[in-house]
């Protein structure tokens, strides 16, 4: 080694990582930026028309959906969390994780299933008619394909978010606080209302905000129920009225709602973190319920499980049993292969990007890098529909420009290079699901002490090698978790896939949607069931995290 030799000055080395991280982060922020910039353009005829006619409906329906689902998840999630977290009753251990199962069912699938169950020809009404000898005019049956129906459907599959955070918050509450209130003469009910619930409030608000973001982002269920919300409106304006600008303006408005929720969620999470100031004391012993209440508690926990998972999954299985021989053929297998390859490929890509950002941030913990990574982490709040617009607009513009040049200079048409390709789809998935993977990677990396990096460096490893030889092997299990979570998310994703997929490229989710739209619910069941089965994977992981979590550890994060 020659000391006189000029190696790269340190400044230049620094910039390589910084630039890489900032570049990836900026690229991922492109869709949201595009939506906002497009929305700033002057209002078009279509937009004015929207404002005059349906915009109020969109806003109103979306608000009702958001508030209704928020309330519904609280009603389901908080009592079940309190019962399984604090009380003792038959089946408590089993309910602890089983209550997460509804997470495995995407909202659009539960909507299809209940429609099939409850419509005129469905089993429920048929049984009623046969039992009582009614005919069509003799009775009124509530219509599931309605706004209240959508609220119910979404609440049934989204309550686990509230359940998880509320449960963690209840478990975290120290025995001391409860004992103090007990010594001050408060009975169980007053303790719950005046101590337990207020202490858990930040966690509840955080969970509810997450749920509400999901409710605003839903496309499949509300579209199927024929409800005009932001997401269905965006579709209609874009593909029905062919006005991308107005669609972007609608999307920007939706984003404002979402970001409000996001801020709410962040603030509550921070509050939740600082809420418990005292030392962690011992967990209070579980509340032994009197025998009658015991069974009441068990049935209360059974309800969401029954309606959120067992019935819809059972119906899907029944349909599958009936239709599988016709549906499951070579095309089904090819579709499944497409889906698996797409989900697997995206998950790998996203994990790689998450590692890049997470490790880049560790190497260069400077404000600019942190900010870039934070920015890339906002994507999870952005509804798939909005993201699709944000990807489609710039890609189409690039395609047009390149095509124009090629025609002018080379005399040939390049056609669609980016839009309508798998690349566009991968890009949208990355922007949407990277945050989930990044969260796992960051959480894992912070557990590795910095001296580990230093030790590897003095032992001759370059920063890149440190990542491969030290961090990745140590993080193996959290990386696999992230991989699985993203894999299932991609498998379930509907609106962005619907918009951005290449021509004739089908996935399980898209095929389910198409068959359901054609009122072939029974035929769609095999595809839907495949998605649900895949979705059980992350539920198992989460439930394991729950049973291993000590009090004070957030099972969700």
């Amino acid at each position, binding site marked *: 080694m020659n000391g006189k030799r000029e190696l790269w000055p340190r400044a230049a080395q620094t910039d390589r990582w910084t630039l890489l991280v900032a570049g990836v982060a900026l690229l991922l922020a492109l869709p949201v930026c595009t939506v906002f910039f497009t929305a700033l353009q002057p209002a078009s005829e279509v937009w004015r028309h929207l404002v005059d006619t349906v915009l109020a409906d969109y806003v109103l329906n979306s608000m009702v959906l958001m508030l209704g689902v928020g309330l519904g998840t609280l009603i389901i999630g908080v009592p079940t969390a309190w019962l399984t977290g604090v009380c003792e009753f038959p089946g408590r251990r089993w309910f602890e994780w089983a209550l997460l199962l509804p997470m495995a069912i995407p909202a659009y699938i539960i909507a299809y299933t209940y429609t099939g169950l409850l419509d005129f020809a469905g089993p429920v009404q048929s049984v009623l008619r046969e039992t009582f000898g009614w005919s069509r005019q003799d009775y009124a049956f509530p219509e599931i394909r309605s706004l209240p129906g959508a609220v119910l459907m979404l609440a049934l599959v989204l309550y686990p978010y509230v359940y998880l955070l509320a449960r963690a918050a209840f478990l975290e509450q120290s025995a001391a606080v409860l004992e103090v209130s007990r010594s001050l003469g408060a009975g169980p009910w007053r303790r719950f209302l005046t101590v337990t619930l207020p202490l858990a409030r930040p966690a509840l608000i955080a969970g509810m905000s997450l749920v509400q973001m999901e409710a605003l982002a839903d496309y499949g269920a509300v579209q199927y129920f024929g409800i005009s919300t932001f997401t269905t409106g965006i579709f209609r304006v874009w593909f029905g009225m062919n006005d991308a600008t107005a669609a972007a303006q609608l999307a920007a408005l939706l984003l404002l709602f979402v970001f409000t929720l996001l801020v709410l969620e962040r603030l509550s999470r921070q509050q939740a973190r600082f809420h418990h100031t005292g030392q962690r004391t011992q967990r209070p012993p579980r509340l032994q319920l009197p025998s009658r209440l015991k069974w009441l508690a068990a049935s209360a926990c059974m309800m969401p499980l029954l309606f959120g998972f067992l019935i819809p999954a059972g119906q899907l299985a029944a349909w599958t049993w009936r239709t599988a021989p016709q549906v499951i053929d070579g095309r089904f297998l090819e579709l499944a292969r497409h889906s698996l390859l797409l989900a697997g490929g995206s998950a790998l890509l996203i994990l790689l990007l998450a590692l890049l950002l997470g490790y880049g941030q560790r190497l260069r913990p400077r404000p600019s890098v942190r900010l870039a990574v934070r920015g890339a982490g906002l994507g999870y709040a952005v509804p798939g529909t909005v993201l699709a617009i944000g990807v489609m607009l710039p890609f189409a513009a690039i395609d047009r420009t390149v095509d124009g040049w090629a025609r002018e200079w080379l005399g040939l048409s390049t056609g669609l290079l980016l839009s309508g390709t798998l690349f566009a789809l991968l890009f949208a998935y990355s922007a949407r699901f990277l945050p989930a993977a990044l969260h796992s990677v960051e959480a894992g990396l912070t557990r590795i002490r910095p001296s580990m990096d230093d030790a590897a460096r003095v032992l001759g490893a370059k920063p890149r090698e440190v990542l491969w030889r030290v961090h990745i092997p*140590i993080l193996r299990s959290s990386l696999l978790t992230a991989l699985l979570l993203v894999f299932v998310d991609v498998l379930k994703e509907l609106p962005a896939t619907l918009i951005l997929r290449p021509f004739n490229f089908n996935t399980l989710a898209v095929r389910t949607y198409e068959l359901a739209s054609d009122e072939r619910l029974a035929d769609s069941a095999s595809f839907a069931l495949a998605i649900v089965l895949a979705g059980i994977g992350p539920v198992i992981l989460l439930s394991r995290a729950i049973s291993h979590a000590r009090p004070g550890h957030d099972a969700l994060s």
Partner: protein
Amino acid sequence: MTPFLELRDLDVTYPPRKVIRELSLQMRCTGIGCLLGPSGCGKTTLLRAIAGFEPLRRGSIRLEGIELSRPHWTLPPEQRQIGMMFQDLALFPHLTVADNIAFSLHQWKAAERRARVNELLRLVGLEEYARRHPHQISGGQQQRVALARALAPRPRLLLLDEPFSSLDVTLREDLAREVRTILLREGTGGLLVSHDQFEAFAFADEIGVLDEGRLRQWDSAYNLYHQPADRFVASFIGQGILLPGRIGENGRANTELGDIEGTPPGGCVAGDDVEILVRPDDVIHDDASPLKAEVAERAFRGAEFLYTLKLPSGARLLCLAPSHHNHPPGRRIGIRLDIDHVVMFRRNWSVRCVESPPVPAS
């Protein structure tokens, strides 16, 4: 002759704070040194700068004459051939003991790698533990693995960032001595960072005392104790008090305990106030002595008592006496001074002027 390790005029900053200021030192031929100082004095930062983790604001670092760092240019840690042992050891949890040791050797030929790993396992006495994982062995064994791993690529210099601090005091000195022996056998230079002077004495030939980012003195343990360069070193190393006195016409210092012969600080003239460093072992308990002092406190140390004595003026004095001289507090006992190395500071001056100014030993 080029020095082994040479730091020249170092400034290291964590903006806006200057952690290391104008620090220079030279280590002679592959010796074993120690940076000693209270916590927050910048010693770990200095070690990290030598390892290549912290850029320099000013100055340069050279190892065997080859420049490693200067402002705006830092040779990456992996290219410096400097090893490091960390305070938390930082063993790789996913690798076995043998694989931890072999981490830096992955480009060696398999046979050579195996031979080197076995050699090191033998050196630290862990042959039977090669296939264990770090969490399956004891704390002391983990220290040895960390040492073996750091030595594996035959670094020219090994930096040790308080690696023994998690051990109890007796084990700490034993291990420090053991590591010293191993380094000498391997022909590797060592630089330890510590806040524990006994660990430093056990480990190092040369010790630098750091305070607030400055090197106060770089010297042997003996000289640090007996010829401290300034008040900080005098108070940080060993025990002792500063006895007030005044330079008399005869050039000696008049104190409460009589005249003390010594070279007065440079520039001192008769009538100037000075302070003389008096170590506990400089004060001899002698019943026959006319000089008396009252016992204020006593601490039993086994073989000896450490007495805190009160002089008539109120000044305090420490005295080590064999433990069969048992005197209760309040008793007046006879003492006399027997100071081998008289160290005088000018009163209210922080820098000693008695010897030549502190220079890096070369």
